[in-house]
């Protein structure tokens, strides 16, 4: 039994982690492409149009990968997590079905027009298609976040004959947890989009080709990235953290590896948690900072793990601790790099400051790591619950699907996604090599 549970958890964790590599870029690029299209139209400058076309191609490849790796996610609720679906489908089925009806139809209709219809549409018509694609992508994100937020902080439900039933639609859709999580997640996605854009720009500038477009990419990426990394810290990250402190205090204690309840708790910056001995090795910490950040009061009491029964602790405290610290650490690095870059941009020196361009180039994998680590913090932090306080993860999986059958399809997905990753890297490399300039015939 236990092994089947593990397989089903790995199955979902692997497929969703791989899937989210693509939507974070498409959701992040969508507003940037709209911005480039807007600049092209208002400044009557065709270079911005070429830049938008280049990123539309990257967007298109990512979108396809996002769609094909996204379909398995909806299926897996039923195939691998049937008891959870039976129990909660009456509530979260609402948000998932709305995603299909409102976001997928919208995206599928306008993406084709946006990618291939530039000649059929007027310039403003094409701009409109870009806006619709942006809207579809961000709407889709909201419905998924609302679903996850409900699992983190269930609201608006009642217990019925076969499971939970919806009691308040607006409570589900306007769940306060969803609003902050959405803001935090989308700003994280824009950081990925912006830093990838800046990295491609830096690559062009460093290799001395496509210089004008490279500058546009670096400028757009640095400005959007700086705005969103600041939003990521405050107010969205701060609000999200306080939400966790209020509704999932045991998760907060595990994220910080705080074993005992204390007043004036310190914030861990670095250190390796040793759960058996309840210590942190090699700690570097800021005294009283955790109390202040959580409750805006230097000597506030923060509950430690000892305040909660061990069966309610997240099972993998070290992984949760590292996920959270990697996310926060990378977020801090982004702010530092982008402040320096923005300062140089303002002084007009960024495009010739090679060391900073090198940093921008090498930075591009890290927003993916940060976004993934953020999601791991949310999902590992929710354990041992599948729906917080209502249904344990060990009660939610498909008991009628054996570990052997689960392993078979997990291996299938591992193989398939390896191929997809190779294909993806190959196609993206080609696009970057071809560059944003119109092809010469």
């Amino acid at each position, binding site marked *: 039994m236990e092994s089947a549970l593990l397989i089903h958890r790995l199955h979902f964790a692997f497929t969703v982690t791989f899937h989210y590599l693509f939507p974070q870029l498409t959701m992040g690029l969508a507003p940037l492409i709209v911005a480039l299209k807007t600049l092209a139209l208002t400044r009557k400058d065709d270079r911005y149009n070429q830049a938008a076309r280049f990123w539309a191609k990257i967007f298109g490849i990512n979108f396809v990968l996002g769609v094909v790796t996204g379909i398995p996610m909806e299926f897996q609720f039923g*195939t691998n997590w049937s008891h959870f679906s039976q129990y909660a489908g009456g509530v979260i089925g609402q948000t998932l079905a709305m995603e299909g*009806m409102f976001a997928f139809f919208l995206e599928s209709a306008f993406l084709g027009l946006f990618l291939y219809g530039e000649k059929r549409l007027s310039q403003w018509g094409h701009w409109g298609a870009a806006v619709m694609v942006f809207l579809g992508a961000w709407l889709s994100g909201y419905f998924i976040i609302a679903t996850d937020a409900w699992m983190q902080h269930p609201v608006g439900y009642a217990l019925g004959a076969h499971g939970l039933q919806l009691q308040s639609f607006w409570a589900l859709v306007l769940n306060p947890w969803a609003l902050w999580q959405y803001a935090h997640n989308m700003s994280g996605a824009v950081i990925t989009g912006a830093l990838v854009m800046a990295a491609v720009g830096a690559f062009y500038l460093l290799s001395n080709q496509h210089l004008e477009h490279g500058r546009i990419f670096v400028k757009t990426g640095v400005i959007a990235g700086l705005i969103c990394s600041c939003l990521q810290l405050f107010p969205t990250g701060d609000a999200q953290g306080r939400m966790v402190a209020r509704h999932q205090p045991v998760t907060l204690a595990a994220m910080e590896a705080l074993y005992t309840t204390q007043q004036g708790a310190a914030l861990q910056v670095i250190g390796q948690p040793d759960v058996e001995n309840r210590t942190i090795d090699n700690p570097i910490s800021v005294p009283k900072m955790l109390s202040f950040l959580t409750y805006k009061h230097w000597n506030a009491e923060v509950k430690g793990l000892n305040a909660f029964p061990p069966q309610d602790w997240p099972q993998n405290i070290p992984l949760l601790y590292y996920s959270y610290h990697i996310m926060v650490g990378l977020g801090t690095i982004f702010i530092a790099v982008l402040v320096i870059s923005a300062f140089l941009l303002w002084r007009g020196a960024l495009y010739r400051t090679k060391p900073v361009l090198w940093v921008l180039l090498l930075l591009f994998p890290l927003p993916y790591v940060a976004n993934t680590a953020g999601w791991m913090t949310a999902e590992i932090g929710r354990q041992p619950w599948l729906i917080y306080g209502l249904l344990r993860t060990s009660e939610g999986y498909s*008991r009628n699907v054996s570990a052997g059958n689960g392993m078979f399809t997990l291996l299938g997905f591992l193989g398939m996604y390896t191929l997809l990753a190779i294909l993806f890297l190959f196609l993206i490399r080609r696009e970057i090599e071809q560059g944003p300039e119109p092809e010469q015939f």
Partner: protein
Amino acid sequence: MATLWFLIVALMVVAYVVLDGFDLGAGVCHFCVAHSEEERRQVLRAIGPVWDGNEVWLLAAGGTLYFAFPLLYASSFSGFYLPLMMVLWMLMGRGLAVELRSHLDAPVWRAFFDGIFVLASSLLTIFFGAALANVIRGVPLDQSGYFFEPLWTHWRIGAHPGILDWYTVIAGVLAFAALAQHGALYLLTKTQRELNQRARHVAKTLWPVVLLLTLVSLPATIHVQPSVLGNFRAYPVWYFIPVLVFGSLIALFYYLGRAEHDVVRAATHEKCAFVCSCVYLAGMLGGAAVGAYPNVLPARDPQYSLTIYNTATGAHGLQVGLVWWSIGIVLAIGYFVFVYRMFRGKVAVD
């Protein structure tokens, strides 16, 4: 209220089969109708702007099923675990093939993705036919409301059936032939010259196969699941559905012949033939839905059958759902009309 949602989900499934059916079918006939690179590009251009939207009906129908009948979604998706996972792999391969084929101008790259496109489309039609047949035949549900079916057991219909037995294989082949014909008819309406002729030839060749398998599938279904006749006997008005199925098949043959001989109005006849195929598919699915109601997943042991009554969610959820679903469907139909108008007419030859 649950009956209304049964109707809604059934309509969405029909929309999915009729719409995605033609691009799946185009995939099945891809090698038969399109020989040169230029012709293959035309086939892909005929479905390119619409296939993704067509596939969204599957996701939207799935999502609607999920929230309206959570136990049904949970039970059927986990019980059909292996075939559904394979459907996922096929859908992925097919999506990649259609979208990525054009990215590289190299013969091996394109031939590879053509192969994936044909293989995945063909297997999907067979899987979908077999899946529907499993739902009609009934599955080994027990009192827990769950079951698990391996891909095959002994190919017979008994207490422990597999996904594939003689009955579901017939249905799989029927779906393969009917959707291939549907795809060929769609290509007929969208293409010109040799491509158009070959598409007509494929449709004409498949027609007797579809007719024969349809004739076989009716008594087979009644033999396998006698309860399907219940609603028809109680409300004989439903007998118009089988009449419609055969009527549309005959009309289809008529319009195919007219399209060949009446060159002036060929385009109109081609469209009529395609519409007949749509009606045929809708009739087959509608007949299955009437036969099943109010069951949504019959059990081999009838006392454990899942019905709309024991799987539907609470009344409030269903009422709220009706509000947003109505708005959503109006928007979705609006987008479809817009996109199909945008790309109407035959695809250009370059």
